């Protein structure tokens, strides 16, 4: 049985997190839903990532620090949110941010908020089903 591994190199694994108040697909959340997303998910122009305090401590990251999150597909400047509930060694980032609207579809209440984690992710083909497995990717995070 072939084992599918997270791509890239990096000590940690970046996973998307479904936040119940954000639609994590091409549909957009409504302004009222975007309004109630926690300020530990995105705040002003900053997107947060969740890291276990043990992991953060090893890397030298504290709550609210800016950091560079890097995968083989690119890097984002993010802010750190420490959360005991996430597994050590894993970085969680909300999926469903980073919608952009163009021209008459540009809605300032919902567009341009946060970063789209899909830009950092890489699906891996599952040779048996032919579908893409897109769950985690190896990542590094460094304080800036």
């Amino acid at each position, binding site marked *: 049985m072939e084992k599918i591994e997270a791509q890239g190199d990096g000590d940690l694994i970046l996973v998307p997190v479904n936040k119940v108040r954000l639609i994590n697909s091409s549909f957009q959340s409504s302004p009222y839903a975007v309004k109630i997303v926690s300020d530990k998910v995105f705040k002003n122009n900053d997107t947060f990532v969740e890291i276990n305090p043990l992991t953060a401590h090893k890397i030298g990251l504290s709550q609210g620090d800016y950091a560079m999150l890097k995968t083989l597909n690119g890097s984002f400047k993010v802010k750190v949110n420490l*959360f005991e509930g996430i597994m050590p060694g894993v970085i969680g980032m909300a999926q469903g941010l980073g919608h952009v609207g163009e021209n008459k579809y540009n809605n*300032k209440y919902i567009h341009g908020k946060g970063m789209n984690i899909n830009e950092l992710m890489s699906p891996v083909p599952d040779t048996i089903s032919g579908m893409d497995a897109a769950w985690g990717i190896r990542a590094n995070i460094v304080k800036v």
Partner: protein
Amino acid sequence: MIKKHNKAKAHKFGMVIDLDKCTGCGSCMVACMSENNVPFKENETNKKDSITWMHVYRLTNGKSFPDTEICYIPRPCMHCGGKGDHGHSPCVSVCPATATDYDYTTGIVSQIYTRCFGCRYCMAACPYHARYFNWWDPIWPSGMEKTLSPDVSPRMRGVVEKCSFCFHRYQAAKDTAYFEEREDITEDEYQTACAQACPANAIVFGDLNNSEHEVYKLVKPDPYHGGRPKEPKAFRLLERLGTNPKVYYISEREWVRKAGDNYVKGKEKDHKKHNTE
């Protein structure tokens, strides 16, 4: 107790929220905001000036992975009965213009937007942060004015607003009962937007003075102690301050019940005191 002309007992509308059912989805928040014409800005990430009459907080039990547990707590206005449950809510007592008032026939703390001159004393008084100030005038994106609820007045800047237990729905239910020549309204005729919207049925709303209502059966409020719940799994936030809120919470988890109030180190057992009857 004020008796109505048909000898019915005064209502005491309240809410019971099951914290083991709440998923933190925020439907209650969204339903409340759209029901009550709550304004929104482009950037609502500063939660200290973001108006959410119903606000869902997230708590953790403070333990490390993998023993971390979280709990979501929806917090509407508590409609406090105040000291002795006599209607001296912390906010009602301090408003200098009587822009907020305690209604003895429903137990609801009102907010009169046209009377409020924005001194914010009530906001200083409320320990639950249930009150919100209009720091800006609302801007409704063009076309959205048509979606506003006609039963709820929008507010201009400079006044305080808060959860009203969807009082306009109470008025509508009373009107219906009147037209149908009934004296009183039934339990399901007056339900708040948040209770209606909750997909997990975590929020139950009704008359705490009516032993037939679900809210009464869930918490068994003690009328001799300001409505304190007799049900041991139920609690009210900041019970020890004596605010006598009308919103009750239920949880099987003791750490959640303990998080409802403050205890001096070493005296955590105090929280069992009022739940052992």
